[in-house]
């Protein structure tokens, strides 16, 4: 890649106020570095990944509203987590976390366990019990 070809496309890097560093060759064929504001193919890939996550959050929300899952699954998606990650954060086995997705079981959870989840998601217990709480 020539230095003049280092992409300067619009991206969210710019709005966060930083450019990334790239290696490219100058006119003499010597390697040098050049700052880049972003590159479209990557921006699209990142945007798509974000859209996928938002989709997952919306689906989880719908499931909570239809009482098909517990708010834990919704907050898990909201925090971009999956089951293994959530399990390691709360320190509870995956199969038990999965059971806590069951709305009936969820209502029976002890305050201690609820607090664990609330701490991981950085919310209070009321918010954990009701995904629309405070919104």
């Amino acid at each position, binding site marked *: 890649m020539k230095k003049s070809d280092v992409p300067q496309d619009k991206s*969210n890097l710019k709005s966060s106020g930083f450019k990334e560093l790239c290696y490219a060759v100058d006119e003499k064929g010597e390697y040098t570095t050049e700052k880049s504001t972003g590159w479209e*193919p990557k921006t699209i*890939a990142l945007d798509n990944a974000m859209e996928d996550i938002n989709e997952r959050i919306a689906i989880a929300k719908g499931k909570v509203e239809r009482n098909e899952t517990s708010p834990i699954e919704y907050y898990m998606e909201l925090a971009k987590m*999956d089951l293994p990650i959530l399990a390691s954060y709360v320190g509870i086995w995956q199969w038990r976390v999965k059971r806590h997705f069951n709305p009936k079981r969820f209502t029976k959870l002890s305050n201690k366990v609820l607090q664990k989840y609330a701490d991981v998601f950085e919310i209070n217990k009321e918010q954990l019990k009701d995904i629309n709480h405070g919104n």
Partner: protein
Amino acid sequence: MEINFTHNQSAHCENGVVSNLMKFNGFEVSEPMVFGIGSGLLFCYLPFIKVNHAPAFTYRSMPGSIFKRFAKRVGVKIKREKFSNPKQAKARLDENLEKNNPVGLQVGVYNLTYFPDEYRFHFNAHNLVVYGKENGNYLISDPVMETVTTLTESELEKVRFAKGALAPKGHMYYPVDFPKELQLEKAIVKGIKNTCKDMLAPVPIVGVKGIKFVAKQIRKWPKKKGVKVANHYLGQLVRMQEEIGTGGGGFRYIFAAFLQEASVVLKNEQLASMSKEMTDIGDLWRDFALDASRIYKKRSKKSDGYNDIATQLETIANREEVFFKKLKKAV
């Protein structure tokens, strides 16, 4: 307190931390040099590990291995510490800062507040340097950032004790012992040989074979997984190629820069021409990403185009196969 530490932006975090720590200790080592000697270049396809609901791909070696190999090959000793107790981790960090010793830390990206939102995934192998503490805030030199930044005590604790795959467990590291003079020649040869070995490894998911394997899979994805998932996987492939600052070439440009530098150190003309060749291969990776992005851009339901980019990937694999066989003989 603030240590007199110079922040240099780098394309990739681990090389950058090593290069910056070496420079702090009086050794001028560039980022590509660290990357090359540490044998950072790789390709690996890990279908059984799912990251963000897609298989994992990597264009570089395991986190931490670049520094490990680099240190071993140039004769630098590193001290590494991991902690189970965050308080102890903080105490050891503060102790080092008191002694004017900047340290490298492995951290999780998700809670790095200064990153743009779309980079904040549960990825636990990011690296940064802490070079001081002021009014209870840690002074942070994150190599991929243009300038230095700060994190509060609780923010730093959170990223040091991120959970999930490759959990950092407070991992802190810094060089403790240096050779009198840095002997790069042998280290470079070792680094190159190691990279050639990895890229030509007789393992179906590693190196050139790995690239070919992925190409085959790409042809199957639309039928087997449906177009939506196939697009998601393809996006993942490009996102990993791109991390931050690889300029589209999946680390190939950094490696080419290394070969150019190495040709001067070893007085080996052939390496200079091989650097050019690697740049061309990097351009091919870039074109691949560009064409792949055209497929997932529209998030269309059509499944054409997959065969074309698979062919492109096979061309890259063949070029790299020839390249690394030649490179092996060049040193």
